[in-house]
């Protein structure tokens, strides 16, 4: 290796070989990472005998398309889907409104104790959810909010530290000269926020919207703890109920799972760029 490195012609050859090897490894890796998705889809199309066959087939012997309607109507999944949409939309809106307000304040307004408050905001990101889980439950129970959507939606309207931090970084990156020029022209702060800062931080807003969408759509623990009657269930909770009742109907479970994942996969592909930007910028995300 060492000797070859010194000869220019072979360096190029080695690099080429390395790149081909990388490419090969990446293709194999991709197949491994995609296999579970493939498995999900093929299982969702297998007949019941086909699912419980040993050794298993990777592909269905005959396509059982009726798993989709059968699984979907085994429980009121249409209702669950609508519920998920309602909860997710309200929570997403709340995250956006409250984090924009707070992020703007931290990025642009000065006040006493601002820095201390910001340090506190960062510190609260470290508090494990386990510690606040029980007291929050008691609080919502005492407010008579069990079996309502309040416990799932209200916290989003009270500003999540992670989103505030993320948006503040975006707002800070916009030159203050823009604000000052507009102020001199007589624009109000609200107007500056609306027509200068928000349009310029669209990627940040998109990141918050998407993270919040995914987190709320996937949220399982919240609905599990707070929702009681089945007509309020979200998709996540309905799926878990379905899985618990029908251990043998892997095919229908997978069919419903595919539908439950569809909105997230769709949003992911539409807004991939913002996802990745948000993750690299904040170093976290999606959870």
């Amino acid at each position: 290796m060492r000797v070859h490195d010194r000869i220019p012609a072979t360096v190029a050859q080695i690099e080429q070989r390395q790149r081909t090897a990388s490419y090969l490894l990446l293709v194999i890796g991709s197949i491994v990472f995609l296999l579970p998705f493939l498995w999900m889809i093929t299982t969702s199309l297998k007949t019941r005998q086909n699912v419980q066959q040993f050794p298993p087939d990777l592909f269905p012997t005959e396509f059982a398309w009726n798993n989709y309607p059968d699984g979907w109507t085994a429980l009121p999944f249409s209702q669950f889907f609508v519920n998920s949409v309602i909860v997710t939309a309200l929570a997403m809106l709340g995250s956006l409104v409250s984090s924009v307000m707070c992020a703007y304040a931290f990025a642009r307004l000065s006040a006493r104790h601002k820095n201390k408050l910001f340090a506190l905001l960062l510190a609260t990101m470290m508090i494990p959810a386990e510690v606040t889980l029980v007291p929050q439950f008691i609080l919502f129970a005492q407010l008579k909010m069990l079996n309502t959507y309040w416990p799932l939606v209200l916290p989003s309207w009270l500003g999540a530290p992670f989103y505030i931090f993320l948006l503040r970084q975006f707002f800070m990156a916009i030159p203050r000269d823009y604000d000052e020029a507009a102020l001199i022209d007589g624009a109000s702060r609200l107007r500056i926020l609306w027509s200068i800062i928000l349009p310029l931080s669209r990627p940040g807003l998109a990141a918050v919207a998407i993270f919040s969408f995914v987190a709320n759509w996937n949220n399982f623990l919240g609905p599990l703890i707070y929702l009681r009657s089945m007509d309020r269930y979200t998709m996540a909770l309905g799926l878990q109920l379905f899985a618990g009742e029908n251990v043998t109907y892997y095919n229908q479970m997978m069919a419903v799972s595919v539908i439950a994942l569809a909105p997230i996969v769709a949003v992911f592909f539409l807004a991939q760029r913002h996802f990745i930007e948000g993750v690299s910028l904040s170093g976290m995300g999606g959870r």
Partner: protein
Amino acid sequence: MTAAIPTLARTRHSARTREALAFYLLITPWLLGLLVLSLGPILASVGISLTDWSLLESPRWIGFANYERMWADPVMWLSLRNTIVFSLGSVGFGLATNFLIALLLNQRVRGLGVFRTIFYLPSVVSGVSTAILWITILDPNYGLVNYLLGLIGIQGPGWLTSETWVIPGLVLMSVWGSGNTLVIFLAGLQGIPGSLVDAARIDGAGALRRLWHVTIPMVSPIVFFTMVTGFIGSLQAYTLVLLMTKGGPANASMMIGLYVYQNAFQYFDLGYASALSWVVFLLIMAVTAIQFLVARRWVHYEGA
């Protein structure tokens, strides 16, 4: 003129007050959330942990009895062990896998966007659906993993039904869903100045030495960051375990977070659950502190 100066000062003063007022008005939602959803609950948690409370009756003050009980509770110790083993496995394998993929992707390969999407997607969809998916994938007889192992002549274990293999099974699933780390690594690798790597190459350093002496030190702060946040996440991860194994078989996959949940919402033992939740808190603090101490030995800060 003499009259104008105080007026100006006054308007400036009131402008500043107005700005501060606007600041506090705008952060009111967060302040409210801080008090009602974070600080309040933390204080309450300390109080509740000193009581015996089933929510149906009123709380009874029992001092440190919950903590004494916890100390003698074998399930607590087992869950602590399981949590640490799972975290080490999932963070360790997750970082290694993603780092390797990031290195490969950083070779200026074609189709980088497509590969990145493939590796990243599982981490986005993680939830009940993927938990159910992995139950079927890890099924001893009809599952994908044992099917693939069978192709190369290996009889796969019972995974989620085996006390030995349940945690490795969960680790496998968590590595599949850890692609957000990849995006961070890739951003870090792309930030390394090309001149640095070229200089090492001219000095005759081979690929492995360039990796060890240039690339790894340069991204070590990012690796460190993902490690810290990865542990914070995995030490609390239990919703998927709740869905997949409920802590079984024979508590072999009982996690400390899951034990908190079960005590609170299945046994309605709010006092004990609150005491346990402080173990999670201490565990996270301890693991984070250890990482910061060890970091001095291996994390390299450019220009520091």
